[in-house]
């Protein structure tokens, strides 16, 4: 379900291989999964939201956890391709001030960084 790929310059990309709601058990799985991937060595982590239909508070906690893991080394967490609903949720939580939310594709986000 969750995929992690390393692009150029140590940029890590997290995506979902099919459309899903990150809620309930799926959120718990996301949390466990992100602990198994090597995020610490990433210069930046990009989460591709194109397959994320909705995300609940445990899913949000998993995103904060990713942020906490990488921000200790000064790396950014960038979220792209998010639905309007998820963007609104991030705004309600004011997490759009902690994460970088961009309206672009993963490829464009990587190009911007390089």
């Amino acid at each position, binding site marked *: 379900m969750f995929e992690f790929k390393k692009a150029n310059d140590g940029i890590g990309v997290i995506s979902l291989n099919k459309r899903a709601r990150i809620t309930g058990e799926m959120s718990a799985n996301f949390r466990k999964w992100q602990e198994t991937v090597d995020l610490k060595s990433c210069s930046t982590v990009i989460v591709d939201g194109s397959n994320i239909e909705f995300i609940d508070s*445990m899913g*949000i*906690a998993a995103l904060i*956890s990713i942020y*906490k893991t990488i921000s200790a080394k000064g790396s950014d967490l960038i979220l792209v391709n998010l639905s309007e609903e998820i963007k609104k949720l991030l705004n*309600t*939580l*004011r997490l759009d*001030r*902690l994460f970088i939310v961009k309206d672009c594709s993963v490829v464009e986000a990587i190009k911007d960084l390089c």
Partner: protein
Amino acid sequence: MDDDLSVRVLLKSILSRDNHDVVESADGRSAFSSLAVQKPDIILLDLMLPDYNGLDILAQLKESKELEPIPVIVLTGSADRESKLTALSSGAVDFISKPFLPEEVLLRVNTHLKLHDLIRSLRVAVDNLESDVIAAGKIQNALVPKSNPQGLSVEWIYEPSYRVGGDIFDVFKLDENRYFVYLADMSGHGVNAAMLSVMVHRFIEDFRTSIDEGEFDLSSFMKELDRNFIFERFNLFFTIVSAIVDLKEGFVLLSNAGHPTPLMKREGSVQFLEGKREALVGINMIHGDVSKIPFRNGDLLLLYTDGLIEVMNEKGEMYGEERLKNLMESSSDTDIRSASLNLKSSYEGFKGNALAEDDITALLIEF
């Protein structure tokens, strides 16, 4: 149970060699007499007994609350396919065809004993967990108010999605004319969230008692929460909306940390109280911003958790903020109690038979 003496002797010898205690019965009547005295760990049942049909015995065993959990392996003739299927669909766990090999008997009996033991331990574990969760739910429920504080008109809906939930709230009197209200929502729901909610409640109680009641400052309170519940401590966060209602001066001081936007109904029109919004609690982003909102005679304030606006119907649509605003606007409830009942029946009607995914809490405060 088998009417054939040679089969019983053979089975007893095979099983005794593997240290199993065996009680034999040649017919149904003596089998039930033995079962009344002692319950075995497993039953081997011949389907053709002189006084009973083996399938009837199986049905009787499965109907008895005490005997039902005992696994039953049926003994059948190798050609008797139909009986094997009927026995399996009637609750037998396995079958052994005659003639049998000693190894096969031992393998099947030992496998089912192990399996049965595992199921039994699992049941005990689930029962224990269930009673712990019920106890936790009772503790959590004991923390939310049971009645209105004197002088303030409040109604609430408090519905955990499971036996325990991640929502918590409280209302208490600060002094003659001022009241403090908060509503918090822990990330997730279930035991982790419930335990954090109890800690948050406890912390707020301590904060309140540690200062002079007249000195309760909303801004310091929110900053203190942010300092004490840092995300890394529990790997959980919470959102909270807290308010000081001043009935003498006619205003509400409101602080909203990542929580859904409260609503105010005034003279028939409903407004979202966007105001200054803070980030969720625990990521060191609360600055202590407080909004001051007029609160006068007839005004109605609604605080709620996201579980309310995220109630989903069977089509997968959400209840949403707009529907909530429209409901508040269209209702001509004369009292706060019927406004609360109206809200409850609105989202329940919308939800239909869909499952509740999140805890739902709503607080209505009327001037």
